């Protein structure tokens, strides 16, 4: 897979998103930098309010008008930040597309699944309705929807949650995008269906050689799907690396806390190691490191000075003062 001198398909530098309202401004994303090679899966792992969904939406220009976006976000070589609505409309679908958490609200209730998929193909590729419907049928078969021809004529409410999510994946893949953005696509599903969707995404991603940015709060899901993991806290990436590095080394205290407070097998009978307190208010971030008020290893300086981001290796980044001695030791 690894070809020499590949250019990243997604290259985000110092992305900031601030929601400016009259009363207050909320800094949802505060300088996020990452890049993603074609055919790789990056998972942004974080709790609610960490800015993971906003980062994803910014990559497709889906933030509202009052949001102030700065930095650069190159998707397939084009900067999405500052792109006009017409330009955005052209890349949404063939270059970048998105699947959402709630398929019921993301699909249009008054059109059949087939019509909704065909519309995208007709718009972007100028095919006839009949040819587009044929492609839609192939897509439904690709996402393994049983009796696809019949399902083509179904309205969203006639399908179960898992089927709707498959239909939405089919829709997102309609124009063979090079980047797929997935915003917690399995959170609303049952475990037995969740694993089916994860396996399906993994298989399609490999077949199409597509890059995927996957957002989730579930460590288990991240372990199942990702090549790279970026842990996000208060609008910043606090730790990045390969899935093995992040899940086994856990160099940032927040990653450590998040992983040890996530219940999984063999933790019975002992109190859970937990992170004290709540995530910070994004409208009034603490000075210094945003995690310092909840960190059990915070030094006095953490509350005053922002933590530096320390590079431990290629693509391996930790934003914590404790990481510097780690580097010196090597």
């Amino acid at each position, binding site marked *: 897979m690894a070809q020499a001198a590949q250019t990243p398909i997604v290259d985000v530098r110092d992305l900031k998103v601030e929601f400016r309202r009259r009363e207050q401004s909320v800094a949802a994303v505060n300088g996020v930098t990452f890049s993603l090679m074609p055919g790789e899966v990056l998972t942004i792992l974080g709790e609610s309010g960490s800015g993971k969904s906003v980062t994803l939406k910014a990559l497709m220009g889906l933030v509202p008008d009052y949001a102030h976006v700065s930095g650069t976000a190159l998707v397939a070589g084009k900067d999405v930040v500052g792109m006009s609505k017409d330009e955005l409309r052209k890349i949404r679908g063939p270059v970048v597309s998105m699947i959402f958490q709630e398929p019921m609200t993301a699909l249009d209730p008054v059109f059949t699944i087939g019509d909704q998929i065909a519309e995208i193909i007709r718009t972007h590729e100028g095919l006839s309705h009949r040819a587009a419907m044929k492609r839609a049928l192939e897509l439904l078969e690709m996402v393994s929807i049983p009796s696809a021809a019949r399902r083509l004529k179904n309205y969203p409410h006639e399908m179960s949650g898992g089927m709707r999510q498959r239909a939405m994946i089919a829709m997102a893949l309609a124009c063979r995008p090079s980047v797929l953005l997935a915003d917690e696509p399995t959170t609303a599903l049952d475990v037995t269906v969740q694993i089916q969707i994860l396996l399906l995404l993994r298989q399609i991603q490999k077949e199409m050689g597509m890059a995927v940015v996957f957002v989730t709060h579930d460590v*288990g899901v991240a372990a199942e799907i990702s090549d790279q993991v970026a842990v996000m806290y208060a609008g910043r990436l606090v730790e990045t690396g390969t899935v093995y590095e992040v899940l086994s080394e856990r160099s940032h205290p927040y990653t450590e806390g998040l992983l040890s407070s*996530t219940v999984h097998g063999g933790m019975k009978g002992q109190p859970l190691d937990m992170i004290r307190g709540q995530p910070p208010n994004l409208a009034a971030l603490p000075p210094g490191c945003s995690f310092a008020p909840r960190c059990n290893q915070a030094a006095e300086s953490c509350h005053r000075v922002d933590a530096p981001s320390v590079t431990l290796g290629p693509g391996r980044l930790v934003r914590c003062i404790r990481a510097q001695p780690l580097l010196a030791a090597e």
Partner: protein
Amino acid sequence: MSTPAPYKVYMPPVPEEIRGGKAQPLLIVDKLRKYFPVRGGVLNRVTAMVKAVDDVTFEVQKGEVLGIVGESGCGKSTTARLVMQLIKPDAGTLVYDGDPVGAFRGISVSALRRKVQMVFQESFASLNPRLSISDSISYAPKMHGTPRAEADERTERLLRDVGLNPAQFARRYPHELSGGQRQRVNIARALALEPKLLILDESVSALDKSVEAQVLNLLVELKQKRDLTYMFISHDLNVVEFISDRVLVMYLGKVVETGPVDEIYRNPRHPYTKALLRSKPSFDPAHRTTEMPLTGDPPSPLNPPSGCRFRTRCAFAESVCAAKVPELAATPDSPPQHEVSCHMFVAGSGHSRAISGGLS
């Protein structure tokens, strides 16, 4: 050593705490059933039945945590609501600590609700937005005749018990709290009447992982401190394993398997339980799930399959599975508390993989 006292032994009335005795299950649920009618057509006649809970039988022992797991639509929440009598069961009996509920010489529904309290998933929706935190918590005790001063004092103690500083939180309103704090308030409110049994219906599911761990630790601590019994309903298999002593696995309104938590998780028998456990995301990227444990979605409880309800998704289904409903029974080679409802574990059931011989 000492000689027996010459005076007559005074026998006090049986206190509330031990009225049924230690061995008496706190709750016995027998053949509980709820069918919701679906109406349609011009005459609005009943066209179908949603068999939400169908002949569910289980016991909750004193001081244990009974976990109930299953996919959406399996009837776990309906079971909780039926136990609380928030919806009226079509059939079946409930026995609370030896007293039949709502029956002659039994315990009345309102008395039951003082002993059994519930915490829901949506922390915001289950609090009255116009009542301050302290008013919400002290409402029920005051309605039940506790003097104002005593109720307020109890509220303060409860807030402290759930880890909220009364001086800081008592006068606040629900919208001023975070999700985790609101769920703590809901737990405090549920404890205000000093119940014996707490039904936790997906109570930690909507919380972030770091906050979920805090609330789980709190629940374990409160249980020890206050001698509580929990019915813990969740779709999260890891959380259920962490907190439960015994587990009930439900599928489409039926109990498919029940037993001690270690038995169920280490040695599952029912094909559905096995598939459910295999569906858990692995936490090790080196050992990812490669095969789909189950295909398709759970079927609708509207007109469920005949016989065994799992047969449409089961890899081992045979003709006997469609013809006969399997009974929930202990298997010959497992501890007696481990019960499973599958024809493969009944000798002579007619299933080709049925176990041979053993106890009948």
